[in-house]
């Protein structure tokens, strides 16, 4: 058990260091995947089997795929060069992190279990899906329902945030449309003008997009 903890803990920390130190965003995301899977293993050593499975499926699976997808979509895997606007931010952050980690470690060492761990572990029932589900649908019914509303809001919000404005067919101002319209009566020019009109309106939209960007 101790060996498993040391291995998983070391993997967790190595993954964490890769996540915050990697220059390439994809490498950082893969480091985080390593951390998440190691954390799932830690959950398993803590008698939380359902959470271990959920961690792998939801975190390491769904969330990280979303991250990698956005990193590649935005082509944001290049680090930002140039001087940091805040002087000594790295040194200060590192110092703060060391102080925080030290404080947490001192607090952790002084923690005393309220009752023997072996006895308390039995009360968890192995952290299976059935015991978690029972707690979730009895004592945590209100948070459970609130979370369902939260997920609905997140779905609607994500769709609303990333949708592009719907292009209107009559986006082209009337004066421009008149210029493009061929003289009435010439069948040939009318037949050929339709794609030109479309092209023109696309061009117009592109111009607009550039202005907005």
């Amino acid at each position: 058990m101790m060996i498993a903890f040391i291995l998983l803990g070391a993997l967790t920390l190595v993954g964490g260091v890769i996540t915050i130190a990697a220059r390439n965003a994809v490498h950082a995301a893969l480091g985080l995947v390593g951390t998440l899977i190691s954390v799932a293993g830690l959950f398993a050593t803590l008698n939380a089997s359902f959470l271990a499975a959920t961690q792998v499926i939801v975190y390491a699976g769904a969330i990280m795929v979303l991250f990698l997808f956005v990193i590649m979509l935005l082509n944001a895997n290049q680090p930002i060069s140039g001087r940091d606007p805040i002087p000594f931010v790295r040194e200060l952050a590192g110092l703060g992190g060391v102080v925080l980690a030290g404080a947490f470690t001192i607090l952790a060492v002084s923690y005393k279990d309220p009752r023997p761990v072996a006895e308390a572990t039995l009360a968890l029932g192995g952290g299976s899906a059935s015991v978690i589900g029972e707690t979730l649908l009895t004592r945590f019914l209100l948070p459970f329902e609130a979370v369902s509303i939260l997920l609905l809001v997140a779905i609607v919000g994500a769709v609303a945030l990333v949708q592009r404005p719907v292009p209107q067919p009559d986006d082209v101002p009337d004066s421009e449309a008149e210029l493009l319209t061929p003289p009435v009566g010439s069948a040939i020019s009318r037949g050929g003008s339709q794609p030109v009109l479309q092209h023109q309106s696309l061009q117009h939209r592109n111009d607009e997009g550039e202005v907005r960007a």
Partner: protein
Amino acid sequence: MVPTSYYIALSGILFALGMIGVLTRRTAIMVFLSVELMLNAANIALVAFARSWGDLTGQTAVFIVMTLAAAEVAIGLAIIVAIFRKRETTNVDDLAAMKG
């Protein structure tokens, strides 16, 4: 049986790593990745305390935190994509329009 305090110490170190990442990284996506590290550190502590007290409350809370993280990532990445479309950057230093 690994003592609970070892898990809490690991959780604290991981949280500090995440904090360093949030403070030093300059791309919005990297800041998000570091926030995920901090959330996971908190999850480790919750599960360790659940075992220590023999109470399932901690494990259920972790389940809810995971759901929250999924919602947060979906909204956050949508905001990043929307900002990138408008301003062609995800550098958090450039996005200071709401600075007071």
